[in-house]
């Protein structure tokens, strides 16, 4: 028996920390390989001739930057070479059980983009509009970004807000109606916030008070809002379009001086008030969540509601308040459709932006700043289609229209590593 007992003899005590080994994943090298092959096939299968011109400013700008012309195929091949190098590096790192650094991912993304764009714009008579691409990215990201902020606030408090889509659509509709009747975009905006909060209130009543499954309620709400607004649109708005569905839009307000900065100025600072509010909303939501009493309690309720309850925080009230604010934040995004983008409501005009916002929340790891960046990425993916059609790219526009969804799939599939949701997200709080 004594032969079978043993005590560690290498040292007197066992270390108090767990050993850590690097877990490597094949995700990066596999995706890199796939993308390199895609670009390689494009270049081989459909070689093009001529030059690609990138335009950085308009004639009317204060500073005019000359357009740049590049030999299209040569640049594309150089970019492909960079992609292949990055892919090999990534495989080597994987073989050595090391992780692919984020920098390599960024370099890869830019090289891919540059190669693809110079191939797409080859030989075109029109220039490739860089400024317009940036500006369109921001504009297309507005509803997604507000939606993602609202989603992040809701989930941080423990309520999964699948109904972002419904909130966007409802607030777009209400903004159109109120904005048209009053002829005042500000009244439309306020109405949109209320509409977003109202949809959130319904979500809250079912999920917080009656503890119905949050995903089901969210999906049902989306369908309900879609049906309701479509019905009202055909039955009421179309018959009285002049009175009920013709808003006065928010004007574009160029900010003095910074709107003249080359590239960035025209792209980012000749926008309407809602876009400027979006610039402010991101740091504001971040500050509110991480630096205020409201945010601390909200996060506590989303992570460990029982612990919050035992220190006297009213869990349900906190969740309701968070959800209403989240709904109003989403309302800004809805208002953008009918008060900035166009001046009339149209059936299902949000077209799934709310779901992409939901993806941005996950991609952004439930953090407002990261979620905002994710929303911008999705906006960029959508904007690329427009820019490519300007230069008459050979890629069918249907493929380009798929791009935001493909990007979403990749993003949510976890390209950015493991993310951790608030622990009590989606779980109703039941007090015994």
């Amino acid at each position, binding site marked *: 028996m004594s032969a079978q007992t043993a*005590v560690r003899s290498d040292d007197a005590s066992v270390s108090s920390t767990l050993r850590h080994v690097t877990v490597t994943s094949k995700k990066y090298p596999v995706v890199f390989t796939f993308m390199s092959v895609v670009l390689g096939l494009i270049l081989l299968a459909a070689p093009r001739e001529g030059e690609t011109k990138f335009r950085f400013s308009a004639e009317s700008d204060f500073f005019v930057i000359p357009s740049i012309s590049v030999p299209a195929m040569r640049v594309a091949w150089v970019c492909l070479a960079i992609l292949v190098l990055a892919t090999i590096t990534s495989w080597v790192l994987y073989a050595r059980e090391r992780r692919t650094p984020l920098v390599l991912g960024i370099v890869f993304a830019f090289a891919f983009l540059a190669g693809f764009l110079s191939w797409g714009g080859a030989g075109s008579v029109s220039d490739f509009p860089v400024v317009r691409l940036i500006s369109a990215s921001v504009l297309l990201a507005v509803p997604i970004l507000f939606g993602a902020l609202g989603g992040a606030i809701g989930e941080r408090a423990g309520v999964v807000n699948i109904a972002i889509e419904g909130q966007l659509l409802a607030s777009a509709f209400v903004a159109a109606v109120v904005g048209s009747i009053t002829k005042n975009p500000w009244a439309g905006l306020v109405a949109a916030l209320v509409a977003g909060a109202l949809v959130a209130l319904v979500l809250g009543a079912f999920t917080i008070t009656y503890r119905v499954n949050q995903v089901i309620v969210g999906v049902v709400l989306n369908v309900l809002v879609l049906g309701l607004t479509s019905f009202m649109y055909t039955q009421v708005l179309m018959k009285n379009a002049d009175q009920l569905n013709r808003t006065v839009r928010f004007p574009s307000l160029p900010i003095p001086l910074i709107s003249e900065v080359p590239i960035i100025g025209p792209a980012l600072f000749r926008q309407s008030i809602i876009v400027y509010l979006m610039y402010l909303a991101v740091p504001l939501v971040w500050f509110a969540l991480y630096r205020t009493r409201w945010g601390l309690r909200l996060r506590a309720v989303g992570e*460990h509601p029982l612990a919050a309850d035992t220190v006297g925080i009213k869990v349900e009230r906190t969740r309701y308040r968070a959800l209403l604010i989240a709904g109003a934040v989403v309302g800004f995004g809805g208002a953008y459709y009918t008060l900035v983008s166009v001046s009339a409501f149209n059936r299902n005009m949000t077209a799934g932006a709310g779901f992409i916002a939901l993806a941005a929340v996950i991609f952004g790891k439930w953090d407002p700043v990261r979620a905002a960046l994710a929303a911008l990425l999705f906006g960029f993916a959508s904007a690329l289609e427009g820019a490519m059609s300007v230069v008459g790219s050979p890629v069918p526009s249907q493929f380009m229209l798929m791009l935001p969804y493909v990007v979403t799939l990749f993003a949510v599939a976890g390209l950015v590593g493991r993310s951790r949701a608030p622990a009590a997200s989606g779980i109703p709080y039941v007090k015994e």
Partner: protein
Amino acid sequence: MKLELRGITKRFGALVANDHIDLVVQPGEIHCLLGENGAGKSTLMNVLYGLYDADEGEVLLDDEVVHFAGPGDAMAAGIGMVHQHFMLVPVFTVAENVMLGHEPTRGGGRLDLEAARAKVVEISERFGFHVDPDAIVEDLPVGVQQRVEIIKALSREAQVLIFDEPTAVLTPQETDELMGIMRQLKADGAAIVFITHKLREVREVADRITVVRRGAVVGEAKPGSSDAELASLMVGRSVELTVAKDAPRYSDAKLEVKDLEIVDPDGLVLVDDVSFTVRGGEVLVVAGVQGNGQTELADALLGLVTPSAGSITLDGTELVGRSVRDFLGQGIGFVPEDRGVDGLVGTFTVAENLILDRIYGPPFVKAGSLQLRARDEFARAAVEEFDIRTQGIDQPAGRLSGGNQQKVVLARELSRELRLFVACQPTRGVDVGSIEFIHKRIVATRDAGVPVIVVATELDEALALGDRILVMYRGRIVGIVPATTPRDVLGLMMAGIAPEGSEAA
């Protein structure tokens, strides 16, 4: 502050969890509430803390009747609670957890983190706690997390402190330190309620002892009472505290685990280079404070997790990489740690649960259909043999008491032909009567020549059952020692300190 409970009664449906309980706690006194799991101690404290509403009775503070609508009221009145399952937000820092609910703010609801940090440091220094206010709670050892709970209560000027089963998750050393802290708080004038079912701790710190059984106070005991006296008061009859067993008679059967390593998705090595052998006819106890890799090790023995390295061989057959069904087919019996989650399907009947892992063929399934008569006969026999107290084999297993649920699991696992038996915390949350029975069955399995592994977090159980004791700490083996090893040595080993001069004798 003096705390008094008068005639507290709390019912859950037909169950009377608290039946007219009276309790008085004076300032500067440690009052122990002793009782088995399910005796109603925690319910009573949740009533006091405002989490439950009492059906009858009243709470008095300094002889004045108070009424708490929620924990917020209880705290404001000066009652602090150190919960059995810590009420801490794992991803928050210590300071954030301590200030939650009564946050110091600067204008506009902005958090005043400086003030919160200062408060933590001040209390921490007053009691010698050594707690970093900026540490993330989930990164801290359990013992330190508990101190955060205490700081949380003290930062709210609590004068009555309730400790609900505070030692369940602590190493013996941490337990001693906690006893020290409790004495210090007592000297500071706090009234302390200490809820536990561990007799040794009671005798060590209690000024007064109230024993609860089945929801009612059954008597007071003096701090000088013996273990046997306290136990019989707690259980209602005299109980055997030791397990009778003969010296092991080894058979040829053998489980060999070699260089086993289990890594979680984040790269943390949960089981690190673990090797041991268990022979047929002996019980190897895997001891250690919960969360040191025992769960993962046990799961690997049933193929529930796949190790990243190492081998598990049973009588020469390599098992790593096979499916759970193959593991079961090799004759491995497994009692999981959390029977409610992994051991039983609560809404299934006792009979269904008893054949849960035998649905692949005869005698219970023929041509794809259940053989109900065979099942019921088998179930009736098992209920009889394992003394499962149930209204019938058709009763949902989830409705049984903890001890009887565990007997269902045990009956299922032990009624197969076994070549290895693994039981994880087999008596957790089980009444003393059932503990005796379960221990006897485990010893009987060993005597039948089967290698047995018992994962235990309590030293009492480890010493009672084990022929050898393997102590794990942070995923590694601290040592494998005979069951005659003194308690204090085992205690130190559970904290990762290998005893000097005891190397592989």
